């Protein structure tokens, strides 16, 4: 079985400051990794994904994440946040080559203030 741990339930950050959201996973098999964002009262939007290849992946809205196999981590970063980045961020994993379910972390609420 796989599990995902998002280490911070809430991250307050000032506008134009950098932000890092931490995600660790555990799995006995190879996984794919994803970050989704959920704006208030909206659905889940794919931010970025790691399937294979370069461990540094870039996504939409200036976000990027780095896959670290030895530390089983997939932390999300943005160098300068905007008010509009206020949202819930979910890290998720799926078992490689299984067309299977996504296992989500508990989510990190990012609150950006002026």
């Amino acid at each position: 079985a796989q599990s995902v741990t998002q280490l911070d339930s809430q991250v307050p950050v000032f506008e134009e400051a950098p932000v890092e959201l931490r995600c660790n996973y555990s799995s006995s098999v190879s996984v794919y990794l994803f970050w989704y964002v959920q704006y208030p009262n909206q659905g889940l939007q794919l931010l970025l994904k790691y399937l294979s290849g370069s461990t540094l992946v870039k996504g939409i809205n200036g976000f990027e994440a780095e896959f670290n196999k030895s530390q089983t981590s997939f932390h999300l970063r943005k160098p300068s946040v905007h008010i509009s980045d206020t949202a819930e961020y979910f890290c998720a994993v799926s078992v490689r080559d299984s067309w299977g379910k996504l296992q989500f972390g508990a989510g990190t609420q990012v609150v950006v203030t002026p």
Partner: protein
Amino acid sequence: AAGVIQSPRHLIKEKRETATLKCYPIPRHDTVYWYQQGPGQDPQFLISFYEKMQSDKGSIPDRFSAQQFSDYHSELNMSSLELGDSALYFCASSLRSGTEDQETQYFGPGTRLLVL
């Protein structure tokens, strides 16, 4: 680009009633997933379908059933509704293309179900 469509977007039901949620995947996508997100919780996988066959099953109550049709749309049928079924229900779709991207799920806007 076309996205996943879910209907209705909002639904209010009484206890013990039934509800049917519909999901229309991205065109050409052949795999559909259903998730349930309770208030303040992360999405939990319910069930998935590929080419009209059940592909995987998660924590879906026996009161719920689902199917995928020949046009790849899917319906989630919920009977004997309970207060605890109040949640946001997401549908996601993907395409089993034979590439790694087949593992990427694209989500719809969700159906918010309120059981009174």
